[in-house]
C-alpha cells in the first residue's frame, strides 16, 4: 500500500472542503480513516499501534485524522532512519497514556467557542450536582423534622365549661326551644325564623305577630335558658350526639389534618343569633301590646344570650355576641322612641343597668382565642427544639396546603403527585419559611399592635396592626411566603375592633337616651345640654368615638337627637344620610384615617332615634 495522498485524499486540507455534519451522517469520516490506515506504508504492528492510539483518543474526526497522519509520518521517518519496529514501538511508550495525553492536549487546541461551551457545561454540571446535593440535604433535613404538639388548647377552652354543673347550663334549654321552633338539620333556619326580622309597619308584621304569639312557649324557654349563668356548651371538631338532632351528622365536616382548635365547629352561634332576633321581634310585639314587663324581659334575655355567645374566646364568638347586643340596643332605642310611655322609670333603670353591665361593661373583641388558634396551628406544623425554635415539617406543609378547609383534606395517603410536589417543594418551603421563633415573634408584634389598637378609643386609633400586616404582605414574595401562616391565619381583627367600637357608641347613646327620657319625665322637658344629666342620670357625658369630644345632642322640632360627627369628623347638625334601605350609609360610621376623611360624604351618624324609625 502506498501512502500517496492522491489515492486516499486524506491530507488535512481535504476536511476543510467537507461539512463535518455531512461527513458524520454519511459515515465518510470513518471510511476515510479506514482508508488511511489501510493504505499507510507501515508494518502491521506499527499500524496497529497507530490505530489503537488514535481510536482511544476519541477525538473529532479531523483531529483523529491529523494525529493518525502525524504518527504514521513519525514511524515512517523512524523506519527510514533504520530503526526497527520493536525499537519504535518500545520508544513510543504506553499507548493508553499516549491516547489520554494526546486527547487532553488536542482539546486544548479546539476553538474558543468549544472550550467556552465545555467550561459552561462543566460549570452547569457542577452547579447541578451541587444543587442536587443541597436539595437532597434539604430533603433529609425537612423529613427529619416532625411536630410534637404538647398543649391541648381545646381542653383549655373547654375546661371551665366542663366545670359548669349540668343544671346551670343554658344550652340544653336553648336546644329544646329551637326544636320547638322547628329547627332541624334539614330546615332552612333563616327562612324558618324569618318572622323575627319583620318590624311594626312592615307588610309581614301581622304574620310575624301571629308566629310570635303561637310560639310563646318556645320564647319562654329561650328566656328561661338565658337566665342560666353559663351557656355550658363544650366545643370541638364534631357535634355532641345530643346536638345532632339540630345540626345533623358531622361526618362530612371532619378534616382530620387540620389542628383541632382551628377546626372547632361553632354552629350554635347561628342559633343564638336567631334566638336573639326572635326576642327582639317579640319585644316590638310586646311594646305594641303595651306589655312593658315582656319588653324588659326580652331585652334582658337577648343581652344574656349575647353574653352566652361569648362563652368561647374566638373572634367569631365576640362578633356574634356584639351583634346580638347591638340588636338589643336597637330595640331599646326604638321602644324608647315609639312607646316610651309603657316603660316605667324602674323598667328604664333596670334596662339601663343591664346594658351598662353587659359583659362587665367591656364591649370588645378578644384576641385570646385567635392566639390559641395560631399557637395550636404552629405546634402542629413546626418541630420543637425545646427552646421555642423549630422548623416547618412535612405534616405542616400539608396543613398549610389545606387551610382553605378543603373537604378532601383527610389523613388518607396523599396521591403520588402530591408526594412528589412535597418532596420537591417541601424542602424549599422548609428553608424559606420563617423558623418557629421568628414566626412567633412577628406574630406577637402584630397581635400586640392589634391589642393596642383595640384598647384605644376610636378617635386615637393609629391602625398600627393593619400597617404591620400590610408591610408584611407588601415586602415581597419571599417575605410573604416566609410569614405565610400569619397572613393566612390572622383575621381582620381591626374591622372586628371597629365593629365593637361602633357598638360602644350605640350603647352610650342608648344609655344617654334613657337618661334623657328620665330627665324629661322628671322635669317635663328635654335638657338643654347633656351636662344636665350628670351625675344623677349619667356618670359622665359619653364621648363621640370619632373625635373624643362629647356626643352631640340637639332638640329638633321638639324631639331630641343624639348623633356622632361620624367618619368625616365634621358636625353637620345631626343630618342623617340614608341608603336605599333607609339606614345610615356605612361610610359615615366606618373609621378612616384622618387623611381620608375627605372621601366620606357629608352628614352625621345619627345614633338615636334611629333614622329608619
Amino acid at each position, binding site marked *: 500500500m502506498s*501512502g500517496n*495522498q492522491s489515492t486516499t485524499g486524506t*491530507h*488535512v*486540507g481535504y476536511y476543510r472542503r467537507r461539512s463535518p455534519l455531512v461527513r458524520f451522517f454519511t459515515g465518510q469520516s470513518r471510511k476515510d480513516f479506514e482508508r488511511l490506515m489501510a493504505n499507510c506504508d507501515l508494518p502491521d504492528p506499527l499500524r496497529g499501534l497507530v490505530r489503537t*492510539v488514535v481510536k482511544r483518543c476519541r477525538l473529532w474526526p479531523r483531529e483523529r485524522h*491529523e*494525529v493518525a*497522519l*502525524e*504518527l504514521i*509520518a*513519525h514511524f*515512517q*521517518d*523512524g523506519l*527510514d*532512519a533504520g530503526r526497527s519496529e520493536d525499537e519504535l514501538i518500545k*520508544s*513510543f*511508550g*504506553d*499507548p493508553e*497514556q*499516549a491516547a489520554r*495525553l*494526546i486527547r*487532553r*492536549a*488536542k482539546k*486544548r*487546541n479546539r476553538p474558543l467557542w468549544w472550550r467556552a461551551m465545555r467550561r459552561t457545561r462543566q460549570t452547569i454540571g457542577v452547579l447541578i450536582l451541587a444543587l442536587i446535593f443541597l436539595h437532597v440535604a434539604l430533603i433529609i433535613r425537612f423529613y427529619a423534622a416532625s411536630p410534637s404538639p404538647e398543649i391541648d388548647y381545646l381542653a383549655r377552652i373547654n375546661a371551665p365549661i366542663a366545670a359548669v354543673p349540668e343544671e346551670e347550663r343554658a344550652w340544653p334549654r336553648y336546644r329544646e326551644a329551637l326544636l320547638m321552633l322547628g329547627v332541624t338539620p334539614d330546615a332552612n333556619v333563616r327562612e324558618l325564623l324569618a318572622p323575627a326580622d319583620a318590624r311594626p309597619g312592615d307588610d309581614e308584621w301581622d304574620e310575624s305577630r301571629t308566629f310570635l304569639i303561637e310560639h310563646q312557649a318556645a320564647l319562654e324557654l329561650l328566656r328561661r335558658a338565658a337566665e342560666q349563668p353559663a351557656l355550658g356548651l363544650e366545643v370541638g371538631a364534631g357535634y355532641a350526639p345530643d346536638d345532632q338532632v339540630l345540626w345533623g351528622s358531622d361526618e362530612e365536616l371532619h378534616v382530620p389534618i387540620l389542628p383541632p382548635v382551628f377546626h372547632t365547629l361553632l354552629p350554635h352561634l347561628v342559633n343564638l343569633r336567631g334566638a336573639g332576633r326572635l326576642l327582639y321581634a317579640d319585644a316590638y310585639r310586646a311594646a305594641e301590646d303595651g306589655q312593658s314587663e315582656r319588653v324588659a324581659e326580652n331585652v334582658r334575655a337577648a343581652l344574656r344570650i349575647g353574653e352566652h355567645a361569648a362563652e368561647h374566646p374566638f373572634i367569631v364568638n365576640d362578633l356574634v355576641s356584639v351583634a346580638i347586643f347591638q340588636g338589643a340596643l336597637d330595640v331599646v332605642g326604638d321602644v324608647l322612641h315609639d312607646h316610651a310611655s309603657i316603660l316605667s322609670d324602674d323598667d328604664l333603670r333596670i334596662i339601663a343597668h343591664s346594658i351598662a353591665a353587659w359583659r362587665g361593661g367591656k364591649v370588645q373583641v378578644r384576641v385570646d382565642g385567635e392566639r390559641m388558634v395560631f399557637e395550636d396551628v404552629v405546634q402542629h406544623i413546626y418541630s420543637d427544639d425545646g427552646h421555642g425554635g423549630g422548623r416547618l415539617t412535612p405534616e405542616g406543609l400539608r396543613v398549610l396546603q389545606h387551610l382553605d378547609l378543603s373537604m378532601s383534606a383527610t389523613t388518607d395517603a396523599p396521591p403520588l403527585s402530591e408526594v412528589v410536589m412535597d418532596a420537591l417543594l417541601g424542602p424549599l418551603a422548609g428553608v424559606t419559611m420563617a423558623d418557629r421563633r421568628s414566626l412567633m415573634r412577628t406574630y406577637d408584634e402584630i397581635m400586640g399592635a392589634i391589642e393596642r389598637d383595640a384598647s384605644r378609643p376610636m378617635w386615637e386609633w393609629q391602625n398600627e396592626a393593619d400597617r404591620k400586616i400590610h408591610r408584611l404582605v407588601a415586602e415581597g414574595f419571599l417575605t410573604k411566603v416566609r410569614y405565610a401562616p400569619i397572613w393566612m391565619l390572622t383575621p381582620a381583627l381591626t374591622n372586628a375592633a371597629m365593629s365593637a367600637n361602633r357598638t360602644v357608641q350605640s350603647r352610650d347613646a342608648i344609655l344617654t337616651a334613657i337618661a334623657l327620657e328620665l330627665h324629661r319625665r322628671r322635669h317635663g322637658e328635654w335638657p338643654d345640654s347633656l351636662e344636665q344629666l350628670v351625675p344623677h342620670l349619667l356618670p359622665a357625658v359619653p364621648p363621640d368615638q370619632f373625635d373624643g369630644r362629647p356626643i352631640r345632642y340637639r332638640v329638633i322640632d321638639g324631639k331630641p337627637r343624639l348623633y356622632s360627627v361620624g367618619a368625616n369628623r365634621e358636625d353637620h347638625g345631626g343630618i342623617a344620610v340614608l341608603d336605599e334601605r333607609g339606614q345610615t350609609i356605612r361610610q359615615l360610621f366606618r373609621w378612616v384615617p384622618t387623611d381620608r376623611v375627605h372621601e366620606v360624604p357629608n352628614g352625621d351618624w345619627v345614633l338615636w332615634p334611629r333614622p329608619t324609625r
Partner: protein
Amino acid sequence: MRIERELMRGAGPVAVLKLLQAGEKYGYELVEQLAARSEGVLDMGQSTLYPMLYNLEAKGWIKSTWRDSETGRKRRYYSLTGKGKRRLATEEEQWRSLAGAMGKLGILGQKPAANMGVTT
C-alpha cells in the same frame, strides 16, 4: 539516566523550544535531537512528546504546518512563534538562575559558596 517525571515536565518544553529556536523541525527529528544532544537524558517517548507539542501549540508558543518532505511524504513541521521566543527567553533566564543557585549549593559539582560552612 531516567529523569523524574516532575523534572521532565519542567525541562521538556524548554528543551523543545530551544531546539525549535534553530529552525522548524518535525516530530521524529525532535525526538532524535532531544536524545542525541542531551546524551539520552531528555530521551522522552513519543507518547510524551506529541502531547507536549500539542500543548505548546495550544499555548501559542509554537505553530505547525503540513508540508511535503523530501520523500514526498506529508510531515508536520513545528516552529517557534514570537510568543514562543519570548517564553524561551524567560525560561532560559530562569534556568540560568536555577543552575547558578544549584551550583552555589554544590549540587552541580562546583565549589559551594563560602558561607555554606561545608568542608570539601
